[in-house]
């Protein structure tokens, strides 16, 4: 094709894309309110009485290697821009898979793989085509293995010191999957570790959303957990277990998961009271140096370090910090009470019994400070079309490309994810009189807050916390789906069901599955209350339309429809609707009769939370399976329309075909521009670990002595386990480090 022809084609494609361009644009995160948690810090009887002490408690707990059964802290997997960039022993065989291959390690691009493998650039992407822009070019290799985070050796918990030894007493042995020649290696997570930075804005957390928006005080499951509750001191002689319902507390829900996970941090059969018993009397960060200028500990006078002598620990105990931070009704019961306890040992006291509450909320309050709002995208001036004009030419081109190719519809709003449901909703709420953004480019809250002409609406963002939407799947037609989640075709849905999985009680993780129960008027099938207030009129594509004509994919009057919110005890959900005709749902009978039809079709298999793109250059490897090492590989993935097709696959993956990106002449520059734009999402405070992203020293297990062919046994924990290698991160203060944290791909050998 002649150059002018190519130019004409490219221009036409861009024009078509431009004509279709719509929706929210990436905006500043400055001044965006963190979702409120009613009852946590406010009201007549708040749970937390000293926020600063609670944050200090949370930071200590987050970074303390004593939390895990064998040296794993939360931070052990969230140490680099809130994510994990370890190279050695990151392979999981794909244990979420329904296929037999889920327990078998594959050889990767380098020809090696499995336990204690050190990943190389040649290993990526895990699913590779001859021409990365063209699936028909031929698949070079594929793997259902996952690049993730090594965690614990695990074992059966039998006890722990209250003072000294960091490792728990556990009956340990070599794992049947994670071993090299029978010598046990640390187990590895089945999904890549997402960043904790800005995660406070996510309505739910974990890739499959199982960290419920509601924190129940004791588990990750929110209102779904019938046994959940916290012990409340009613008076000096009575303590009772009460239900807790803390909204916008997904981070607390998330935090109480890994601490008991026998893949991540814990020996089996360990409980939160056991962890409390182990930690309460200890000095926080007992074995880790703390910087004398730590942004959290130093202002509170908690450090024992001097500029000349960084020393381990804080000058207090966890018990004292909890007593200072939390309402006494959660810890001051002087009697033993009905809290239970391990056989033959002292019964748990109230503080131990409620340790999950303290742990979850303290970590949540700490992570709520990890908001990166000082990236170029945040600080730039904006033109009348809300374009960030201070970005480099290349980054600005990338910004335009990002919007033109509809990346913005999923990576929406200032957090660059539609999963930030509450945060995005607050910004488009009309009439608040509030503004966000830098002083020179303040943006008014309201319908245009995320993009001109009510641009948020195209992404399904409304002033309401709407956890379900209806949108188009590539081959599955219009389908109901959890808002903020999508199947992009990264993997075979059978390799990891994601949102299609179930909770510990057999309930579907998917809110959409519950919504189907709601539509059939089956309240018992609705476990999360927020599902019963879903507003159908805010769906991207309507579920039911108040018209007498018929439609093959949408309910209409002849099918049998009713007003949304019109059931007894409900309030009509027809206010502020883009179209009043869309504020309808099928009658329960109609919904039940069409359950297997297109009109009730839903998408949940292989569906995952849409991640934020902030600091994305620092958070590789990418996707839920860690299958891509570079941002260029990510762009290529979207340019070819994903790896796998299914009826659950969101249409957004394929409408963003990144026209012209495969052109050998123009493509490289377009890719470079898009990557440059993504780099404009990096907050330099994150890159240089400045406050609030500074941290204590931490020693992180990083594979084992040897390689994937052989390891050295005789780990001090147990002779059948492999000896460790470590990654040591020095303590960093509020002023950060002189050296930037390395990108994942920069550290990879060829």
């Amino acid at each position: 094709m002649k150059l002018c022809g190519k130019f004409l084609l490219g221009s036409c494609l861009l024009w078509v894309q431009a004509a279709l361009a719509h929706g929210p644009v990436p905006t500043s995160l400055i001044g965006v309110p963190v979702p409120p948690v009613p009852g946590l810090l406010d009201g007549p009887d708040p749970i937390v009485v000293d926020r600063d002490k609670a944050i200090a408690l949370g930071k200590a707990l987050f970074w303390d290697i004593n939390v895990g059964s064998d040296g794993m802290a939360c931070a052990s997997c969230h140490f680099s821009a809130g994510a994990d960039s370890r190279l050695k022993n990151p392979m999981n065989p794909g244990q979420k898979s329904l296929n037999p291959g889920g327990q078998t390690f594959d050889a990767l691009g380098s020809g090696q793989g499995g336990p204690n493998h050190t990943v190389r650039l040649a290993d990526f992407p895990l699913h590779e085509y001859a021409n990365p822009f063209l699936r028909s070019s031929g698949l070079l290799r594929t793997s259902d293995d996952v690049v993730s985070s090594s965690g614990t050796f695990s074992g059966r918990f039998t006890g722990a010191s209250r003072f000294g030894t960091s490792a728990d007493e556990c009956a340990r042995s070599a794992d049947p999957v994670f071993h090299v020649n029978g010598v046990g290696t640390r187990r590895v997570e089945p999904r890549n570790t997402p960043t904790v930075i800005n995660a406070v804005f996510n309505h739910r957390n974990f890739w499959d959303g199982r960290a419920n928006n509601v924190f129940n005080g004791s588990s990750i499951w929110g209102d779904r957990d019938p046994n959940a509750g916290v012990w409340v001191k009613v008076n000096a002689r009575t303590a009772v277990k009460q239900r807790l319902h803390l909204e916008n507390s997904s981070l607390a829900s998330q935090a109480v998961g890994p601490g008991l996970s026998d893949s991540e941090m814990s020996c089996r059969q360990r409980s939160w009271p056991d962890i409390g018993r182990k930690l309460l009397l200890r000095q926080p960060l007992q074995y880790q140096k703390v910087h004398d200028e730590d942004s959290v500990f130093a202002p509170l006078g908690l450090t024992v370090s001097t500029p000349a002598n960084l020393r381990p620990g804080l000058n207090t105990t966890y018990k004292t910090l909890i007593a200072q931070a939390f309402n006494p009704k959660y810890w001051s019961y002087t009697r033993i009470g009905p809290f239970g306890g391990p056989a033959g040992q002292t019964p748990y006291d109230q503080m131990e019994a409620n340790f999950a509450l303290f742990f979850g909320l303290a970590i949540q309050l700490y992570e709520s400070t990890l908001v990166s709002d000082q990236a170029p995208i945040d600080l730039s001036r904006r033109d009348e079309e809300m374009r960030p004009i201070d970005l480099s030419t290349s980054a600005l081109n990338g910004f335009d490309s990002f919007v033109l190719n509809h990346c913005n519809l999923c990576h929406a709003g200032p957090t660059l994810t539609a999963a930030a449901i509450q945060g995005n909703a607050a910004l488009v709420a009309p009439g608040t009189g509030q503004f966000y953004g830098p002083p020179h480019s303040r943006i008014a809250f309201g319908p245009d807050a995320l993009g001109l002409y009510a641009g948020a609406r195209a992404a399904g963002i409304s002033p309401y916390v709407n956890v379900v939407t209806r949108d188009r799947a590539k081959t599955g037609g219009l389908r109901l789906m959890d808002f903020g989640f999508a199947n992009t075709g990264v993997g075979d849905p059978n390799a990891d069901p994601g949102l299609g999985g179930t909770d510990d009680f057999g309930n579907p993780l998917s809110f959409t599955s519950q919504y189907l129960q709601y539509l059939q008027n089956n309240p018992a099938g609705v476990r999360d209350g927020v599902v019963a207030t879903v507003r159908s009129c805010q769906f991207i594509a309507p579920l039911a339309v108040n018209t007498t004509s018929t439609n093959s994919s949408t309910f209409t009057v002849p099918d049998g429809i009713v007003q949304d919110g019109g059931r007894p005890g409900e309030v009509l959900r027809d206010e502020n609707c883009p179209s009043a005709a869309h504020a309808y749902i099928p009658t329960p009978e109609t919904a039940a009769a069409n359950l297997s039809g297109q009109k009730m079709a839903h998408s949940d298999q292989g569906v995952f939370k849409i991640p934020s793109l902030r600091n994305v250059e620092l958070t590789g490897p990418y996707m839920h399976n860690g299958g891509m090492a570079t941002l260029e590989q990510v762009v290529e993935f979207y340019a070819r329309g994903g790896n796998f097709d299914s009826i659950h696959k969101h249409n957004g993956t394929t409408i963003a075909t990144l026209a012209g990106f495969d052109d050998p002449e123009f493509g490289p520059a377009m890719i470079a521009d898009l990557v440059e734009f993504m780099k404009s999402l990096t907050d330099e405070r994150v890159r240089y670990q400045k406050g609030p992203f500074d941290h204590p020293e931490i020693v992180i297990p990083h594979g084992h002595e040897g390689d994937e062919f052989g390891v050295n046994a005789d780990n001090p924990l147990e002779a059948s386990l492999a000896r460790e290698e470590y990654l040591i991160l020095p303590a960093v203060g509020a002023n950060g480090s002189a050296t930037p944290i390395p990108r994942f791909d920069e550290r990879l050998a060829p």
Partner: protein
Amino acid sequence: MNALKNCRHLMPVLLALAPAVLWIPSAQAAAAFAGSAALTFTVNRIVNLDNPGDLTALTVTGSFEQASPPDYSVTLTGDGSVSDDNPVAGPVSVGSGVFNHTFAVSGSVGNGSVNSSHLGLFGLSFENTGSDGYAIGVTLDYLLDAAILGQYAAGAVDLDFYNEGFSFIGFDHASANDQHTGSSGEFSFVLNPGEFEALYADVRITGNLEASAVPLPAGLWLLLAGLSAVAVVGRRNGSRPETHPVPNA
């Protein structure tokens, strides 16, 4: 070490520590704790609202007892030991005076562990068996003392005070090497004919110790032996339940 600044404060700890250090065949790194709560209930005033000066129908009694399991829990390993001899005190008639008592627990270990939780139940009760009403004011003053010695040692004393209907409540606590004095403030109430009222105080003393065999320098042996001898002399002033009359308010 803060504890060394106050020798009297540390005496119970040293007493507890001495056997652990001296009676073990080989030298050990030892740990010890001692917790105590000295409580004083003072009847500030009693006024017969119907027949001034007549207190014959009013019974005021003080009492103390150490709770039994599950609020008594001692788990020992190795050579760990706990001293928790706190006999029942009362009920004793207080009249319009003072009731005081000290609840104390200590423990030590040279090679093993101690985990203990003791609950002391204090009370000062008022029973009106007559036909007159009484206006009464009572105050609880307390000294909470928690002392520890050793690298792996923790001790705490928690106090919960409350009246019969939990309308007058308070909480306080002392942790490692902390002496804490305080007062409930005056609890004032009217006791009508046939009524009962009380001011209670629950005190929990916890001790947690871990120690393992580590050789000690000979000099420390001598130091600990000497301190223990001093402590024996100082211990002769044990506390017992007492009543002290005070003038009518």
